[in-house]
Each structure stands twice: as structure tokens, then as C-alpha cells.
């Protein structure tokens, strides 16, 4: 039994226990906490599968903010689930078992986990990893690499080969740099240096090697290749915020302010107050770091946005929502949430206005398409971050918004 399998078995056991506990426990508060534990365990499973970005998202969203939101929901409900008569619903059990069996049956012909010969690894992906965004051998635009184009080795089965490949890349880079030093003013025309072409006024990095700009291939997939999907994922978040506003917001008369709601604050608690004030700046800096550096390490707009939101929510938890509204008004949040999506789509429209297809970031910088790609990706990540952050705060606000009926409000206050 390999170590990976051992860790996975332990995690599977814990996840199962957690899932059963979530179903069985009647205290909804405990359910919220257990679901947080469940998400953290799943984050470990993803880590074990080497998908760091997924693990990061699961930890930030599942383990972090959705726990707060679930607890926020408790304001509207009771603390315990109503005791229900337990009957065995035979058809439901049968359907569940059948579905489970089908899912397991489906795994029999799947490629083994991590199998380098699986279709997914050799059908389209290797060519994708060597995509270029700029002119290669005089041909403009995004394209399949031409004949004889040597893609940098990315997936090699043995460690020795990996080491060799990395060494080769290092050598190639050194050679490139030397070549640049010796001939800073490269003349027009074709010349192949690792099949990369350089424009005048040489950039630090090769202009046409897209993957050279974004070391985290997950980010290049999400923000560039499938940037269109990500735009709609951002819209999903936006829609969720708008749907909650539509469904949960108290009826307001024109010009009514948002400060009408009272609620207990924890600002009398010295330890909490001091610790929160110390934490918030670090949370904010980390949030911006995660958004900006999604291209290098795990992270990006989604995770960073969620982290930023937790700073605001923490503040609101401690000082009450009125204090939060003094920093950022609900109307401002709504406008910002829309602006995030508009920024994302706006980058795409700018690409169209500059003559490219929608979201063809390369059009943003005609002189150096690779830099255009990097700029576009950074901008859309900020768009995602703004929308995610503000929508999370909106969701928190809407969940905490009590119905105007006074008896319900008292019941809610007791529950919180």
C-alpha cells in the first residue's frame, strides 16, 4: 500500500464519518461546524491529488465563508432540527443504492488515477500546453505550434527525466539571455531560438510563449482558454447575490436608510476586539495577494475575493452591521458587484473593439500579445475578485436582515 493510498483511505473514512454525522446530528449549529470540517477534509483530499487550486477554493469557500453563512442562516431558523418520525422510505433507498452502484460501475473502465497514458493526458493537452499567442515563424495569432516546434517537456514519467528537463530549460534560458545580451537589437525576420521570436526592445520574457507568462496552468485555463466560462461563473455569483436581495430584502420605502436595524454587538469583548483589529489588515493584504498572484501560485479571483470578504464580515460580526454600513453602504456593494462582472465582460468587449474576438486578450497589446494576455488575465481576476467579495458581503447582510415582523425579530434575536 502506497503512502498516498494510505492517506486517502484515512481521509475517506473521516469524510464518511463526517457526512453521516451531518445527517444524524440534530443541532443545526453542529451541522454548520461539521460541514466546515467536511470541507477542510475534502481540501486535504484535493491536496493529496495535487490539485492545489481546488483545495484552496474548498478551504476558503467551503471551510471558511459558507460556515459563516450557514450560521447566519440560523438567525432565521431554530437552533435544532425538528424531531421527525423516522420511516424507511423504500423507493428512495432503492434509487439511492442504484445510483451509487451505477457510479461505482462507471469507474471500472476509467483510466487509473494519474495514469500518464490516459486519453486526457495525451489527446489535446500536450498541444495545448505549447500554444502560442503571437507570431511564430511569421504567422500571426494564436495557433498550433508549427512543424518542428519543440514544446517544453511538461509531463514526464520519471523524476530523473524531470530533473533533466528542468536542467534543459535552465540551459535554454541562459542561452537565450546570452543571445539577448549579445544581440539586443534583433533584426526583423525569422530566427528560431527555442522556436521563440523576439520583437524589438526586448522583453524580459519571450513575447510569444504564453505559458511562460503564467506558470500556474490552472489559472491560464480558467482565465484565458476557458475565460468565457469563468465570466459566467462570476455571473452565477452575481446572480446569487441579486436573487437573495430580491427574495430576502425587507420592503423599503424610497429614501429609507439602511441603519434602521439594531442588533447586539460584541465590541465590549476586549480580547475579540483587539484580535480582530490585528487580523483584519493581514486578511486584506492576503486577499489582494491571492488575487494578484493567482497566475503564479494557487489562488485567483475567487479565493482572494472570499478572503477579502471575510475581513468585512469579521468586522460586522464584532461591531454590528451598522458599523459595516458606515464603511460600505449596501447600495455601494450592489454597484460594485455589478462592476466586477462589467469589468470582466468589459475587458472582453475591449478586445473586440481592438479587432480581436471576444476575450482575445492578445488584442490588448498588439506589440506584445503575450503581455496583452497577462494584462487581460490580471484584469479579469480583479473583476472576479470584486464581484465575489461584494456578493459574499451581500449574502451575509441579506441573511442577517431580519423580517420586519417584531415577533419574528425577537425569536431571531434569541436564536442568534
Amino acid at each position, binding site marked *: 500500500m502506497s503512502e498516498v493510498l494510505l492517506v486517502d483511505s484515512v481521509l475517506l473514512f473521516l469524510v464518511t464519518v463526517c457526512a453521516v454525522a451531518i445527517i444524524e446530528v440534530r443541532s443545526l449549529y453542529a451541522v454548520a461546524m461539521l460541514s466546515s470540517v467536511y470541507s477542510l477534509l475534502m481540501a486535504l483530499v484535493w491536496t493529496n491529488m495535487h490539485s492545489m487550486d481546488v483545495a484552496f477554493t474548498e478551504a476558503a469557500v467551503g471551510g471558511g465563508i459558507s460556515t459563516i453563512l450557514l450560521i447566519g442562516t440560523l438567525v432565521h431558523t431554530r437552533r435544532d432540527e425538528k424531531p421527525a418520525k423516522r420511516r424507511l422510505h423504500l423507493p428512495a433507498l432503492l434509487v439511492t443504492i442504484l445510483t451509487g452502484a451505477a457510479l461505482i460501475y462507471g469507474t471500472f473502465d476509467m483510466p487509473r488515477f494519474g495514469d500518464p497514458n490516459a486519453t486526457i493526458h495525451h489527446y489535446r493537452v500536450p498541444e495545448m500546453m505549447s500554444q502560442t499567442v503571437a507570431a511564430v515563424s511569421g504567422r500571426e495569432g494564436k495557433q498550433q505550434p508549427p512543424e518542428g516546434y519543440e514544446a517544453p517537456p511538461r509531463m514526464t514519467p520519471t523524476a530523473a527525466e524531470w530533473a533533466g528537463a528542468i536542467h534543459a530549460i535552465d540551459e535554454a534560458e541562459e542561452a537565450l539571455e546570452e543571445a539577448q545580451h549579445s544581440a539586443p537589437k534583433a533584426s526583423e525576420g525569422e530566427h528560431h531560438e527555442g522556436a521563440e521570436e523576439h520583437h524589438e526592445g526586448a522583453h524580459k520574457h519571450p513575447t510569444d510563449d504564453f505559458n511562460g507568462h503564467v506558470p500556474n496552468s490552472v489559472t491560464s485555463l480558467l482565465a484565458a482558454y476557458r475565460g468565457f466560462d469563468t465570466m*459566467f461563473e462570476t455571473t452565477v455569483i452575481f446572480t446569487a447575490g441579486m436573487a437573495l436581495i430580491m427574495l430576502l430584502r425587507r420592503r423599503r420605502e424610497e429614501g429609507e436608510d439602511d441603519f434602521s436595524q439594531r442588533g447586539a454587538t460584541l465590541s465590549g469583548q476586549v480580547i475579540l476586539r483587539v484580535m480582530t483589529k490585528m487580523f483584519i489588515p493581514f486578511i486584506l493584504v492576503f486577499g489582494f495577494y491571492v488575487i494578484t498572484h493567482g497566475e503564479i501560485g494557487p489562488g485567483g479571483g475567487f479565493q482572494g475575493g472570499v478572503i477579502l470578504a471575510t475581513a468585512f464580515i469579521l468586522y460586522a460580526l464584532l461591531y454590528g452591521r451598522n458599523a459595516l454600513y458606515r464603511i460600505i453602504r449596501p447600495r455601494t456593494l450592489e454597484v460594485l458587484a455589478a462592476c466586477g462582472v462589467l469589468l470582466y465582460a468589459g475587458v472582453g468587449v475591449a478586445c473586440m473593439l481592438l479587432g480581436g474576438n471576444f476575450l482575445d486578450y492578445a488584442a490588448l497589446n498588439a506589440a506584445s500579445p503575450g503581455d496583452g494576455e497577462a494584462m487581460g488575465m490580471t484584469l479579469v481576476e480583479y473583476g472576479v475578485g470584486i464581484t465575489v467579495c461584494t456578493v459574499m458581503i451581500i449574502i451575509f447582510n441579506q441573511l442577517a436582515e431580519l423580517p420586519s415582523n417584531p415577533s419574528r425579530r425577537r425569536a431571531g434575536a434569541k436564536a442568534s
Partner: protein
Amino acid sequence: MLDIPLDVQANLPVLIVLTPLLGGVIATFTGRGVLPWLWSTLVTGVTFALTIQMMMTLLASGEPFISYELGNWPKWWGIEYRVDLLNAFILLVVAGIGFITTVYARLSVQDEIPDDRHNVFYAVWILAITGLLGITITGDAFNVYVLLEISSLTVYALIAMGKDRDRRALTASLRYLILGSVGASFILLGIGYLMMVTGTLNMEDMHNQLLRMPDLDTNRTILVAFALLVVGLSLKMALYPLHMWLPKAYTYAPSAVSALLAATATKVGVYMAFRFLFGIFGVGFSFYAMPSHFVLLGMASLGIIFSSLTAIRQTNAKSLLAYSSVGQIGYIVAGFSLANPNGVAGSIVHIFNHAVTKGGMFMALGAIAYRVGGTDMKHLRGLGKRMPLTAGALALGGLGLIGFPLTAGFISKWYLVSGALDAGMWQLAVVVLIGSLFALVYVWKIIEALFFGEPTGRTAEATEAPLSMLIPIWVLIGLSIYFGVDTSFTADVATRAASSLLGGLP
């Protein structure tokens, strides 16, 4: 005219989705009053114009499809928009119905939705249309799922907005949310399994990869992917017996929302089934290697008969029409599961015919709810005298549901029965006949209440519906009559789209 350096023609496919997306997001800025509605009408109108332009471009080009690569990435790695005759047609239906229901919605929304959130309501409304258009236009399997998320989320919220009139809207929406999420997860799992074995997400590429597999018929991962997708899609298109979410959702949703959903949402589900069963898996696998003929035809036949029977027993006209919708989905599914030209053409043409008929009828019921305050049979009694134009539209729409000659419903059933006879399935022809008889009974229930009852209560003081409602209602009902008489456009498009589907082109 401003000189915008935007090449509309070259970017036409993406603009069809981008216009309502931006329009929907910007709609949150429109504040109160009539502005949100005006903006929405403008946005959906422009979108509709773009889909017309798309259809004309496609027909003029003579190409089998128009492809658009998003982000300019070669389609195998990025996302491709691919418009052929089939989805150009469905786009036209969705955008057209979206525009007409938006025009209709103003008074109905004013009446049923609190006035401090009209801007948000219309934003979500336009985003729902965006989602449906996005599902229809794309050539990428995962992009389908992302847009499905948008359309589902918005629709759950829109249905729940019926809560101010009837609290049961909330449970109806929750039920749809749970079942819809199960369906969407199945679809996602199916797409994931397919990607695992094919190594691609592009529909055409996926199809070719599947055909290249030597063990296509026996590969257990593919079999399970197929099963997951069929179940998930059946849930989304409300195929009997996975229709349980639909009747209550349509009944308690705000009137305008019911009209939009009944005319478009399940139809886009059927379109997804076309793309997955015919496009990705291919006719040979879906209908010959797999026992889909029997399963889908069986479910569709049961749906036609049982949901029509249930419709007869309803005392609320909206819920009657909702059950009738389940039956109509049965016809559509029966048509394409025959997998022959006439059957598939009947299915496609019925998507259009049922959309205009049911959309018009739900809007007429909305007008009644606006004037009388409800859509129970007791509210309808005697309305033929008080609101003759609305009642007349309802009655004509009802004839379309039965499949009366010279209505659009007749054309679809004609194709369907021909398809059944082509396939030697006379039993299906009998089912269609029985379904039409039941439809006659439930439509007669409405007609009897409208024209042969005595008005009481609020009904007695009701006046004819306002013109801003009557015009959209009669446009749709008029279309359902027009396309029952002159079938050249719909039938031609449907026949051509059917033959390209059966040819296996994704």
C-alpha cells in the same frame, strides 16, 4: 449614429449572449419606476433582432454552421460557439418569446412584485434569458453546464417571487431547486465522465473521439455517462415521471414568469437532449446500441396519457396548463426518440408551436389574474362576456393544444404521427390520438367555464385586459394560427435541422 469600431457581423454569435448579459447586469442600476422595464424591453428587443440577423446570415451563407472561437483560441482548447440551423431556430424562439413576454410583463410585474426591487427582478429575468440563449448557442459541453447554472439559479429565484401572492411559491421553488440540482449534478457528472474518456470538451471533437473508440458499446464509463445524462436531462425537461417539480412551479410563479418558463425553459432542456443524444453520442449509439427507443418512448407515452388525465382533474387553470405542458413535452420527446426524419422534425416544430401556444395561454391567464385576482376555475367563470378578447385567445390557444386543424399544434402532430407510422409504431399514433382526446376534455373545461358560466364576485366587475397585455397575447396566439396555415418556414427549417441531426453533425 456613433461610430463604434465594433464589427457586429463578425462577432454576431457572441453578441447574442453578451447583449443580455451586460443588459441584465446594468439593469440593477435602473432604480425604480418604469425605467427597469423600458431597459429590459430594449435589451431583449436588441437580442431578438440579433437572433433574426443570425438566422438570416446563416441562411444566406449556405454553410451548414457558423463557428466563433471565443478568445480566438483554436476550438479544441478554448470554447466554440457554433450556430447551425437547429440552434439558430431555437435561439430565435427563446429570444422572441423573451422579448414578447418582457413587453407583456410591465403591468403584471407592477401588480405582483414589490416596487422597490423591480430593477433586481428584471436583472434576474434578463439573466435567465441569457442562460437559456447561452445553452443553446454553444458548441462546448462544459459551457452548457455553466449556462445551465445561470438559467437554473435565476429561474428558482423568479419562481420564488410568487411568494407575495401565495406562500406556496416558496416550497414550489425549493422543490424545483432540489430536483433541479440533482439533475444538474447528473449532467455535470456525465460531462465529466465523457471528458475523462475522450480528453476534450468540444462537442464535435467529443463525438469524433467516441466514434474512434473500439469499445464504445461496452465501455462501462460511457454507459454510465449516458445514463447520467439521460436522467439529468429528463429531469430538466420534465419528462414523466421526473416532472414533479413542474406543475407547482408553474402554478405559483408570478404570471409573467410562468409564461416565460412554460415557453422556453423545458424547450431548452429538450434542445440539450438533442445535442447530447444526437450530437455527441450520435444516433447509432443513443438509439440503436442503447434501449432509448423503449425507455424514452415509454416514458413519453405514459406522460402524454397520465399528465393529461391529471390536467383534467385540476381546478386551477394555471396548474391545468402546467400538467398539459408535461404532456406536450411527452409529444416532443416521443418525436425525437423515433429517430427518423418525420419524428425529429415533428419534435423540433413542436418546440416552436408549443412555445407560442403555451406562452400565449399563460400570458392570457396572467391578464385574468391581473383583472380578477386569481386563476381558479371560479375566477374564469363567465369571463367570456367580461373579457372577450382574453378569453378568445385562451380558447384559440386551447384548440392548438388539442391539435385542431389550422392551428400550429396540428402540424406538429401530423409530423409526429407520420414519424410513428414510418417507424411502424402504430401504438404511438394511438397514444397521440388518446392524448388529443384528453386535451379536448381539459380545454373544454376552460372553454365551458369561460363562455357558459355566470360571472360572480370580482369576475362580474372585470373589464377587458389592458392593451399592453392584449397585444403580446394576440401576437403569440396569432403566430400559433399563422404557422398552422402557412408552415413553409417552420416545417422547412425543422425538416432540414432534423436531417442534419440524424446525419450526426454536432
